Structures are given as structure tokens and as C-alpha cells.
């Protein structure tokens, strides 16, 4: 298993000089002779191989896990620098490029170790300055590298910090959103559901009241869970009828089932239809004795039709007491004032249906 995380120990037992090549060979699972060959080749590059070998001998621990002394570490690093300079020199690069490369490497080392970041930054900037001033008297090409070096240095200085900050902020935002959501759900559960449950427990002897409470709760919860739903959008005919139905349910403890096909935005005309429909629902709830009312709203090319139906006692219009006729008047009156009609058909014993219709106006 190749372990790239730690520096391998020297292997003096199998080594020729200091056991460096043997140690590296063992750690990388290659033939030490190959490593020795590589050092020899590098030695041709301005003696870089020799400096590198000495640096390795100093930096690699004598035994696995052993800590190096500070002096030995500093000496090793210096030799490493010398090796780098020798190699760059061997490539025939101008001195200032070599120096800035070494400075930049040192800068990067300190930056990524995340200690002495300022020192790292300084080394970087120095590298850039060296590159710039050196390039100033030796001609074209190199000055172009200077801004890039600056930018690269800057990125290395602030990059890790920016990255970590951004990540922390995203995580923080996530946590906040989640806790806000939780708080909102908790508030909702407390304000409505728990209250309703408490009420239901207290009034469990009255099934009608329990049903009423639970229906109201259901409606509330539904409009909260599905705010995009067609129903309960106040600014449409069907939404307004659904709201009116909800009020009637709550006031009179009946069930109102709503069906619809098509919809229109609310205007004065359609609002009149909603009010008339509300009146019809309230009447059915109060007088029919039925516990369920069916409402169907339809909007098509001809106009608006709303049907309010119950299967209650029904009535004979001729025998209706005066005050109730007045209520009917408010349904019929509302519709006729808008150019529509209200037709009430009722059979005693079978229920009542009110049909409201408002023809589309030629515009």
C-alpha cells in the first residue's frame, strides 16, 4: 500500500549511502535502483539531484514515525530550495524567474499550511516584484507574467479563506431557514391544531360541534398546505364561493360540497353571483334540515351558472312565510339587477335547488 500522506523513513539496512533511495523505493513500491537512477539523472541538472538527495536524507525520518529536529528540518528545507534553484538553473531560466519561483513556492507552502499566512502572502508578493523588476531590464514576455503572478498570489492568499467563509454562510443560511420553518410549523400546530384538539376534547359530547371544529381545522390546514390551490383564491369566482361555503359551514354546522368547471376573476357581476349563492347556501343550511349542500359553479362561453342544492324538506313557495320570501328576494333581486336570473325549484320532501345564472355580457 502506497502511503502518500506521510514522508517515508530512510531504509539504512538496504541502502547504499543513507538509505534514501531504498526508503522511497519501499514506500512507493518501486525498485530502489530506479529511484537511484532518477537521482543520478537529476544530478546532471546543475547538481539538483545531489542537493535533493541530501535534503531527503535530512527530511526523511530515521525510523517510521520519528520526529525531525527543527535544525535538521530547516537545513533540509534549505537544501530543497537549493535543489530547486539548481534544477531551474539547469533549465536555463534567468535568475529572477528562478528566485520568484522559489519565493512563490515558499509562499504557497505557508499559505496552504494555514499558518503564517501573512508571511506566505509577503513571499508571494515579493516573488511577483522580483519577477516584475527582473523582467523590466531583460525584455519582453516576462512582464506579462507579473499580473498573473499577482492574481495567483492573491487567490492563494484569500482563496481558502473565501471558500470556507462561503461554505459556512451557506450552511448557516440553511440552518436558519430550517429553524424558521420549524418555528412556523410549530406555531401553526400550536395556534390551530392543538387548540382545535383541545376544543374537541371539551366538546366531545356534541358531535355536530366536533364535526364543525374539525372541518374548520381541515380547511385552515389545507389552505396553508396548498396555498396554490384553485380553491380559496379570493379573487376568483370559484375561490370566493368556496370561502362563502366555508363561512356557511362554520355558521350552521352543515357540509358544503363544491364542484366547478371553469372560473373567472371576480368583478362586480360575479361578486353579485357569489353573494346570491352565499344567501342560497345559508338558506339551505337554516331551513332545509339537510346536513349536506351541493354547490356547482360553471363558467363557459354563455356565462356563469351556479347551482345550490339540498336534499332537505323542500317547500311550497306559495306557503312560504313572509320573512323567508324576503330572503329569496335578496337572491333574485341581486341577480336581476345584474341582468341575470335566479330560479328556485323545490319539491316538499325532496329538497330545493337554486339556479343562479348570469349571461356573459357582450363587451
Amino acid at each position, binding site marked *: 500500500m502506497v502511503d502518500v500522506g506521510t514522508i517515508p523513513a530512510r531504509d539504512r539496512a538496504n541502502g547504499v549511502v543513507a538509505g534514501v533511495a531504498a526508503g522511497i523505493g519501499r514506500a512507493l513500491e518501486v525498485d530502489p535502483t530506479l529511484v537511484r537512477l532518477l537521482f543520478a539523472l537529476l544530478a546532471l541538472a546543475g547538481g539538483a539531484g545531489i542537493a535533493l538527495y541530501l535534503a531527503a536524507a535530512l527530511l526523511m525520518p530515521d525510523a517510521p514515525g520519528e520526529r525531525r529536529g527543527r535544525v535538521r528540518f530547516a537545513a533540509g528545507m534549505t537544501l530543497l530550495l537549493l535543489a530547486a534553484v539548481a534544477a531551474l538553473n539547469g533549465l536555463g531560466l534567468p535568475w529572477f524567474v528562478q528566485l520568484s519561483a522559489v519565493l512563490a513556492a515558499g509562499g504557497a507552502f505557508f499559505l496552504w499550511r494555514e499558518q503564517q499566512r501573512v508571511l506566505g502572502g509577503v513571499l508571494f508578493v515579493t516573488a511577483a516584484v522580483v519577477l516584475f523588476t527582473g523582467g523590466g531590464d531583460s525584455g519582453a514576455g516576462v512582464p506579462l507574467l507579473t499580473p498573473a503572478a499577482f492574481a495567483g498570489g492573491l487567490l492563494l492568499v484569500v482563496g481558502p479563506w473565501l471558500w470556507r467563509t462561503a461554505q459556512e454562510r451557506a450552511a448557516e443560511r440553511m440552518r436558519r431557514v430550517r429553524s424558521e420553518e420549524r418555528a412556523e410549523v410549530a406555531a401553526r400546530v400550536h395556534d390551530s391544531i392543538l387548540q382545535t384538539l383541545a376544543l374537541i376534547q371539551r366538546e366531545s359530547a356534541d358531535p355536530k360541534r366536533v364535526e364543525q371544529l374539525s372541518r374548520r381545522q381541515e380547511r385552515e390546514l389545507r389552505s396553508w398546505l*396548498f396555498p396554490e*390551490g*384553485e380553491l380559496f383564491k379570493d379573487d376568483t369566482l370559484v375561490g370566493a364561493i368556496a370561502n362563502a361555503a366555508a363561512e356557511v359551514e362554520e355558521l350552521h354546522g352543515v*357540509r358544503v*360540497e*363544491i*364542484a*366547478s*368547471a*371553469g372560473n373567472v376573476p371576480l368583478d362586480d357581476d360575479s361578486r353579485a353571483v357569489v353573494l346570491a349563492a352565499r344567501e342560497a347556501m345559508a338558506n339551505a343550511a337554516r331551513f332545509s334540515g339537510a346536513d349536506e349542500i*351541493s*354547490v*356547482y359553479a*360553471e363558467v*363557459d362561453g354563455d356565462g356563469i351558472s351556479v*347551482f345550490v*342544492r339540498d336534499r332537505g324538506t323542500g317547500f311550497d313557495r306559495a306557503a312560504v312565510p313572509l320573512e323567508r320570501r324576503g330572503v329569496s328576494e335578496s337572491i333574485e333581486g341581486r341577480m336581476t339587477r345584474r341582468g341575470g336570473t335566479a330560479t328556485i325549484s323545490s319539491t316538499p320532501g325532496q329538497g330545493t*335547488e337554486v339556479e343562479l345564472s348570469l349571461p356573459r355580457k357582450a363587451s
Partner: protein
Amino acid sequence: MKASRRIVIVEDHRIFRAGVRSELGESIEVVGEAGTVGEAIPLVIETDPDVVLLDVHLPDGGGQAVIAGVSPERPGVRFLALSVSDTAEDVIAVVRAGARGYVTKTISGEELTEAIHRVADGDAVFSPRLAGFVLDAFSSGEPIRDAELDELTAREREVLRLIARGYRYKEIASSLHLSVKTVETHVSSVLRKLQLSSRHELTRWAAERRMI
């Protein structure tokens, strides 16, 4: 007295299942209950009931998954969908998947019993709200590709409007001067169109529930 019908209830709330069980008439025999798609498919295949009362929303998938899993093995089993939500896409999607009817959970025990018998007899059951949706979906002015499937007849419209208004089949029959059997035929025909039509609204609603 109608012949007894065997049903399976597929619904994830035990309390609701118990409630339905106690409300159903004597003519309905509950032969099994399941709370998930995974439980439901083998149970329905094994018990081979007349009707499956199927919740649209199950913890491990939609009611459609149960229909898809059972139908190849037991093509004779009929499904009546049941949900609390009543949104167009739920309803349309489950009916297009093969349910023969759709009712909401607020339905009374008596009406539910009647609906189960109707579905068991091969007829369709529409809640008022489903009737409204269907009228809506079939009313838009998009071009008709297949007149037989993409358009409702005037009679079918009349029947659907009465269902939407809360009429029962018997009341529809007497108000249109038809026999109950004829009303049932019209509703079944609408169901077939609902399942087979390629009208845009229907495919859109189905697509929103990832049915196609």
C-alpha cells in the same frame, strides 16, 4: 338485497380503515387491508376481491402503482379511488391509470357502499368534483383529433352537469327521463373517454403526477 361484494381497503391510516370498515353496509365484506403499495399488490392478487378501495396517496407511491402491479395478474379486479385532496391532477391521474371511479373521503358510508356496488357491477362512479373537472377538461377549444374520444356528447354533458350539481343516478334518470341503466352507460362512456382521450388537459394533469 344486493349480492355481497368482497373488497380490499388500501389506505395508510389504520384509523381511517377502521372507520370505513364500520361504516360500510352489510353487503360489503372486507377481505383484506393494506397500508402500502408493497403490501397491497400481493394481498390483492392473493385475495382476488371484486373491488379495491384505493387511496390515491400511499407512503411508498401513488395508488396508480397498485393498479399497475395488480392489473396484469388480476384484470378482473376493479378499483375505486379515494382521497382527501381532490386536486385535478390526482383525480385525473388515478382514473387514467385505470380506476373506475373516484370519491372523496368525506363521502357517507351509505354512498360509499353504493359506489362500491356500482364499481363492482362494472359501472363508473364520479364525485361531483370529478364531474366538474371532466367538464372543464373537455370544454377547452383545442382542436379535436379524435371526435369519438376527445369530445363529450350533449347527453354526456347533461349527465355530468347533474352529477356535478350533486344529483344521484336515480335523480339524474328521472330529471332527464332516462333509465338508471342509461345514465350508467353514459357515465361509463365518459370514463372511457377520460382514460383514452389524448386531450391536452388530461395528459397535462396526468403528467403532473408523473403518470406518462
